[in-house]
């Protein structure tokens, strides 16, 4: 069996929580600021990068992943991996429909019928 390490609670210092929260605020500020600058395709990468850092901070410190059983980390990461697989494999379809015959790439009518009126 895995070793148990929760017999006595692992108390983190207050300052750590505030530092993390502070960093999260700052990163939120940065990501909003950056969104007003136009890097084109790059914007999404920056925004997702910052979001990922923020999410990791929440998971590692607020959710104690850094200190808890490493199994939990593996469990959590597995969800992201499988989500990634789902998106990637579906995109082998959605991004490649016109590969052989361009006529198949787009819908016949661009606008939905609700605009027909």
């Amino acid at each position, binding site marked *: 069996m895995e070793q148990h390490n929760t017999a006595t609670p692992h108390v983190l210092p207050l300052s750590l929580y*505030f530092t993390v929260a502070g960093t999260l605020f700052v990163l939120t500020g940065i990501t909003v600021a950056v969104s007003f600058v136009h890097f084109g395709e790059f914007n999404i990468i920056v925004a997702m990068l910052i979001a990922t850092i923020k999410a990791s901070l929440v998971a590692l410190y607020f959710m104690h992943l850094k200190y808890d059983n490493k199994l939990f980390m593996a469990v959590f990461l*597995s969800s992201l991996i499988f989500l990634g697989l789902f998106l990637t494999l579906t995109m082998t379809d959605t991004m490649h429909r016109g590969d052989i015959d361009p006529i198949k790439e787009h819908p016949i009518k661009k606008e939905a019928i609700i605009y027909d009126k």
Partner: protein
Amino acid sequence: MEQAEKHPSYLQHHFADMAQQTDAAKLGMWVFLVTEVLLFGGLFGFYTFFRAWYPEMFMEAHKYLDVTMGTTNTFVLITSSLTMALAIRAMQLGKKKQTIAYLAGTLFFAAVFLVIKYFEYSHKFHMGMLPGKFYTFEGIQAANPHIFFSVYFTMTGLHGIHVIIGMIIITWVMIRTMRDEFSPEYYNPIELTGLYWHLVDLIWIFLFPLLYLIG
């Protein structure tokens, strides 16, 4: 049950000791969080596929979301996460009053989040930026803007439902804290509630830039 003497009341009969019980509960919670991630994952999928199909439309439609409100809500939710973490810390140290205060704080910020969302929603409703076939807004030129609002409303809607569920659970553990059910030896339910609440925050951390900041 039969060996009640050596079992504290909060240790269930089928576990050998507290460590086993706590660890099992946490593992169970994490596995459940995995299912939450994948539940939202489906919606993130929609976002991804439709954004790739209609990039200009997303670009144009997202401008109608209110960045100020979104940003405020991000701050609010992060703060609520902080208070939640602090509530757990307080209970680890046995400070019951503090725990209750922090939980109340978390509830407060969750409520603020919902109120702001309410204003955002009602504004959208008013403008006719409704999902799918109810969409009547005419300001967006690119094709099929109603899809963007379908994605927006399903994603934030499901997230909002999670906030509400979270608030119910937090209220419940708060009552249990008041009833003195927890101690530094046993505060598992608060911890699990915390995990859930942080996940709700975590999802918002991705929703916010995807919907409000990059279109």
